[in-house]
């Protein structure tokens, strides 16, 4: 049994600092286990948000050694254990207390996205027939556990604080799931451009890199949405321009 030092950010909206805690590290432990152990033994008022402890609910998002991670899925033996482990709250959201941040902005943003609207049922029994291949296309997006790590890492939110003008990678994934849903018949391109701020994304793929569900956010969600925006918002002028200039574009 070895003990290790954990530098945990303690504080609130007024400010805070990293505080050192030493605790025993045993086989198979994840970062969340260490936080819980410290909470139970030394700091009962240490605030941490968590729930399923199996990477399925997306509650325990934090920055571990500076990287946005789910604490429940980060094994200590995957980190350098000869130095202290730093654990800090997500920086793209206002701090509430210690490791807990105020993520309510995300819930407000989601409500602004035009909801699912299915086409009329096409089967005799009043339901729909769908091909597995069409279901599979959006499955990747529907795996999202809403941990908001992609929002945390996105420089448009994290550095430039464009929360009022930009919905962030999570909600591009959400919009993509709706746009590509085999039954949905709404169009969201104009809103994604005008209110969603999709133009701010300059496809650095930071979001894709931190997604614990391995959703290919940039390539599979954001870029196709950007293409739709080009096709549906800037038609017919830009489309004519593309045709005339010989540039390839996606058919509407």
């Amino acid at each position, binding site marked *: 049994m070895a003990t290790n030092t954990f530098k945990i950010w303690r504080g609130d909206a007024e400010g805070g600092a990293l505080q050192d805690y030493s605790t025993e590290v045993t086989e*198979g432990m994840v970062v969340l286990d260490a936080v819980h152990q410290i909470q139970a033994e030394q700091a009962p008022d240490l605030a941490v948000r968590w729930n399923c402890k*199996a990477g*399925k609910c997306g509650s325990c998002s934090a920055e571990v050694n500076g990287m946005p991670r789910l604490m429940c899925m980060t094994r200590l033996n995957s980190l350098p254990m000869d130095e202290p482990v730093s654990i800090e709250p997500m920086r793209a959201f206002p701090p509430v207390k210690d490791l807990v941040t105020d993520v309510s902005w995300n819930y407000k943003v989601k409500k602004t996205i035009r909801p699912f609207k299915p086409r009329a049922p096409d089967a005799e029994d009043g339901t729909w027939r769908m*091909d597995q291949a069409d279901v599979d296309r959006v499955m990747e997006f529907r795996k999202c556990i809403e941990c908001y790590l992609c929002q945390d890492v996105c420089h448009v939110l994290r550095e430039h604080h464009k929360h009022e003008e930009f919905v962030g990678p999570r909600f591009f994934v959400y919009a993509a799931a709706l746009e590509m849903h085999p039954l949905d018949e709404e169009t969201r391109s104009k809103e994604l451009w005008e209110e969603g701020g999709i133009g701010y994304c300059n496809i650095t793929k930071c979001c894709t890199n931190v997604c614990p569900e391995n959703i290919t956010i940039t390539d599979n969600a954001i870029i196709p949405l950007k293409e739709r925006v080009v096709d549906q918002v800037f038609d017919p002028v830009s489309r004519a321009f593309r045709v005339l200039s010989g540039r390839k574009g996606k058919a509407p």
Partner: protein
Amino acid sequence: MPEFPTHEYDVLIIGAGGAGLRAAVEAAGQGVTVGVICKSLLGKAHTVMAEGGAAAALANVDERDGWRVHFADTMRGGQYLSNWKMAEIHAKEAPDRIRELEAWGALFDRTEDGRILQRNFGGHAYPRLAHVGDRTGLEMIRALQDHGVHQGIDFQMECTVTRLLLAGGRVVGAFAYDRDRGRFRVFHAKAVVVATGGLGKAFRITSNSWEGTGDGHALAYEAGAELLDMEFVQFHPTGMVWPPSVRGILVTEGVRGEGGVLRNSEGERFMFDNVPELYKSQTADTEEEGWRYCTGDPNARRPPELLTRDHVARSILKEVEEGRGSPHGGAFLDIAWLREKIPNHADHIKRKLPSMYHQFKQLADLDITEEPMEVGPTTHYAMGGVRVDAETQMSVVPGLFAAGECAAGLHGANRLGGNSLSDLLVFGMRAGEHAARFARENGLEGLDDAAVAGAAEAALAPFEGDQTAGENPYQIQYDLQDIMQDRVGIIRDGSKLESALEGIAQLRARAKAASAPGSREYNSGWHTALDLGHLLTVAEAIARAALEREESRGAQTRDDFPDKDPEWGKVNLVLTKGESGQMEIERVPIPPITEDLAQIIEEMG
């Protein structure tokens, strides 16, 4: 009396898992105002953990299926203690509840002809579980959540109820605190639905998250409702056993549905030697027949790994006790063996069981397409809960409804896998519908100021007194979990249960002195101290009912009464709070079943 921020609704729903959300959507659809209290953030409730699927006799995969078969399977699984009316309603209404989720955006895996695909699961005669990979619960929660936020429902996130408020002989609301600031809130409503889920945190090894502290069970009990079937706690046979920090996390039954087999340290498929009489005629005789069943052969019978959860859990325990367990005290669950049957078996497994692949790879450093998993029983589900009317889901307390895991009746002595997701849809909807009706038919009763003041005082107790000399609430919870795990677990006996009740009584005294240093802001020590009251109530209810029921049936195994007793098959146990505050237990006869339902059971064997 101190003033607290007060929220007023027609219908207040406590809990935002599948049952709570389905109830909220229904009530909002009826045109009443609805508030939902979530203990966590919206969309994080324990329903997201449900993996295998939702049972509904859609008959998309096997035409022989229908509500009658589903009804009979549920009754058999529950060892005939289930509320037969609820079992009938559930079997009849589940298909519509699944189909309407699609209209709200949920996506399920498809059959060749484009309908909802269904998979095999323990105790179900035909492939019956609508599913999407192994993350069905997340899909359902997300569909309900994303639909619900556009229905005008008011969601109160990270808010915990400590007491239900009563006045004029009915429920009138709830007293709660918010997690971030620790401020008190009063919820004033015409009808209240408790949909708080389970109580697994009363045990040391559990698949439940920190939220599963039996809140709805205890809140309703304290408010005068009856608790039913509390002795029946489901120990899921396959939880992770290694590494220690993840012990108890669920390994879906879907692994076995897809062909996964259980072996002991000697490589034997020991389940073939553990087939109970009641299931002999429905179980495969050979490994080859079992595999054919998993591939969808309608003429094959199910492999013994897909017997009901209570049987499989006990069988694993027996292997471990007799020295044939895996290195960390479980059994081997092998899906990697499919390499003998399927080309590209690794891709197949990753497609069918993506979360399981991910979970083992990341948490145990194990590739399930290459190596067997180590699994063992984990506390999973409470069959027992608030006793409700089968049609309306109302308890004996006027205006107080319950749905989902914290309600009881459907599952009897043992729940079939897949029946919980359909349960929460069917009865969540009914609870929402009838709570809305109750709200329309009954005005808003005034709050009782003294009751509100009393609730506030009790909630502040952990901050009173000597903070340094007080008890650590976490330690009390650990001690309770040890008592429940060791003395009220899978194998029980009278003397262990009696000693558990003594231990629980001692913990109650210690819990009174539990203290929480620090402020009221996001203070989990304080929250744990407040949850203890609920946990101790459900722990006592489980132990008392387990002691009273002197037989082994379904999830209850008594070493001192190893056989099923037909006399005990005629009664349910009901617990209520007595006049002087003590817990009282009563044997309540099961009402005679109607002739048509009896005939279905007869025919389906």
